């Protein structure tokens, strides 16, 4: 990709938009973006509790309507959700067991009663007898684990409204839990294991879940849809997923950042200078500014506003989790953890503004800037008039003079694929290719366009449009590799004549 403009590159020197508030390279924080979050109303005491397993996500939410309203923190780990209030363990939720294969259940039942010998059991199950003997007395169960977690407001939009937990599981399901009773309010099945989750809306009204899965696809589910509504097949595995306003942004392992509509239509794609490690939303509420922050393997964090790079932060180590928001008294704090367990805290300068560049959807603005094309000179106007009036003669003169090719009678230039500058003169209904009907073409490489020009002759003067067929053949073979039909317009030469 082209290197970013100077003012973006220079950011880490004197004119950085960020203040370095804290850096601890050995903070021993090993985490992922889904596992860090900042919650305003937590008491600021340090607290550590040991989880049995790696956490899959944390979320802060309000569980009940009545006072006192303490913010609960949910930590998903393995098949459990640990809920903390005031940083003290409050409740533990265990995912319900999955259905067991009835056949397997039956044979194990029989094994328990010794009604079936391990060999037959093995035949049925395809397993070993020491295993059978070891486990035959244990009860049969199938447990899944949590892979990602988010929150969904129950029925109000307020900041402090009660929220449901939304969890994705290894069994490729999405579950929505009741905030108080922790019963399963809704269950949806996905074609693959969810890994990143974005939730929007309210449970009782309408909501939308955007889920990036391990198969490299993003699925979009709505209320009342048991199955995904829309699907985006990403070019490679997702590294992160966020929603900015109404569009979905995904960072992919093929070094791209891609934007999609809520219905899964691709909006844009930009290539990143290195492999992304994490993706996070930067939501500066006071300014109504939203952007995405992409951690990269080249020790940089890039900030994109849509497809435009607006800022680069250089870091001392590869960043693997990013969280932007209010921390303590500072609204615009950026907290990052690094691969080596380091902790970086930066504060956005009060005066910092990010020149969003162009924020319009569609092609870059540069494309619509009008070039200062010089005015048509009198010479040019005269020449075009002359050409129109005397097309045939002009063309002859020109082809002979400029092109130096074997001249052809009333002719035109056909260009397959590319705009040709010489299409001013006559054109032919019922055309026929000049004596040499073949053009030898060099080796063709996929993905490139080759302008190949030749002359065609107008054979009739009836003033009708006709067709030219183009075949691309391999030398010595008669079956064409490619055929194209070119609809020739009515000859301008004839119209003029």
């Amino acid at each position, binding site marked *: 990709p082209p290197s970013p403009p100077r003012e973006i590159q220079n950011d880490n020197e004197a004119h950085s938009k960020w*203040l*370095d508030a804290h850096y601890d390279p050995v903070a021993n924080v090993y985490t992922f973006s889904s596992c860090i979050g900042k919650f305003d109303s937590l008491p600021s005491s340090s607290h550590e509790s040991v989880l049995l397993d790696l956490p899959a996500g944390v979320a802060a939410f309000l569980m009940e309507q009545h006072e006192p309203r303490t913010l609960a923190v949910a930590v998903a780990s393995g098949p459990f959700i640990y809920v903390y209030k005031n940083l003290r363990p409050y409740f533990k939720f265990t995912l319900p067991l999955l259905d067991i294969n009835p056949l397997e259940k039956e044979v194990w039942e029989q094994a328990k009663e010794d009604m079936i010998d391990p060999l037959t059991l093995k035949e049925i199950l395809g397993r070993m007898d020491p295993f059978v003997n070891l486990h035959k007395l244990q009860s049969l169960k199938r447990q899944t684990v949590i892979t990602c977690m988010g929150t969904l407001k129950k029925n109000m939009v307020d900041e402090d409204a009660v929220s449901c937990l939304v969890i994705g599981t290894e069994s490729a399901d999405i579950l929505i839990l009741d905030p108080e009773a922790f019963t399963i309010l809704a269950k949806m099945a996905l074609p693959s294991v969810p890994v990143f989750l974005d939730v929007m809306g309210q449970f009782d009204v309408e909501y939308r879940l955007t889920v990036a899965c391990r198969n490299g696809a993003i699925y979009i589910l709505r209320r009342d849809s048991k199955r995904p509504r829309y699907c985006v097949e990403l070019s490679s595995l997702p590294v992160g997923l966020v929603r900015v306003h109404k569009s979905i942004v995904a960072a992919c392992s093929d070094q791209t950042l891609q934007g999609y509509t809520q219905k899964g239509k691709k909006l844009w794609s930009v290539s990143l200078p290195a492999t992304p490690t994490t993706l996070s939303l930067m939501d500066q509420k*006071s300014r109504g500014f939203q952007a995405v922050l992409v951690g990269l393997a080249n020790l940089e964090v890039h900030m994109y506003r849509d497809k435009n790079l607006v800022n680069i932060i250089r870091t001392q180590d590869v960043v693997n989790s990013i969280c932007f928001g209010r921390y303590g*008294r*500072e609204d615009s704090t950026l907290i990052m953890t690094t691969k080596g367990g380091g902790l970086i805290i930066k*504060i956005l300068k009060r005066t910092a503004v990010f020149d969003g560049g162009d924020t319009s959807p569609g092609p870059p603005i540069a494309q619509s800037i009008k070039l200062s094309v010089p005015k048509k000179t009198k010479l040019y106007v005269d020449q075009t008039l002359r050409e129109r009036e005397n097309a045939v003669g002009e063309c002859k003169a020109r082809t002979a003079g400029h092109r130096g090719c074997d001249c052809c009678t009333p002719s035109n230039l056909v260009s397959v694929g590319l705009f040709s500058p010489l299409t001013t003169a006559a054109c032919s209904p019922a055309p026929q290719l000049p004596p040499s009907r073949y053009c030898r073409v060099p080796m063709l490489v996929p993905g490139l366009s080759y302008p190949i020009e030749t002359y065609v002759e107008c054979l009739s003067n009836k003033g009708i449009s006709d067709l030219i067929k183009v075949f691309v053949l391999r030398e010595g073979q008669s079956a064409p590799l490619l055929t194209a039909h070119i609809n020739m317009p009515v000859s301008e030469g004839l119209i003029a004549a």
Partner: protein
Amino acid sequence: MGLFDKLAGWLGLKKKEVNVLCLGLDNSGKTTIINKLKPSNAQTQDIVPTIGFSIEKFKTSSLSFTVFDMSGQGRYRNLWEHYYKEGQAIIFVIDSSDKLRMVVAKEELDTLLNHPDIKHRRIPILFFANKMDLRDAVSSVKVSQLLSLENIKDKPWHICASDDLKGEGLQEGVDWLQDQIQAMKT
């Protein structure tokens, strides 16, 4: 200062008026300090975060201070510069226990020092390294290092460790400020 002025000062007939700007991040203790400097019967009991700014008055032995107690909240900090012209002295308050935001305090100080209305004036600046009573407060020496105060070459400045709650360090600071202002005027 002439004898008559001094006499008038002692008698409390006429005190010189000075405008002082009280600046610093939110929660650093500006309002608390100014409240403590007022006569005890004029002090308020509950101090709330300042919205916008408020104008307070207090007197020392020879000066009558009008203090612009600015709000330190991010969204009001852009008000500060509108009062730079009127200010004849600056009190800059730092929460010495807020290590994370020391960079923010430095950034605001640097912006202040580089402002055209301040840059070329020999305006005295008094720093309060406040909240010294808190366990994780850093020393006033450390605060002046963190804010690179040694780089202020063309303005008289002074840093005092202070504890608003007990009122420690405040008098020392105000005495220094008073001396500076009087030296400036004569």
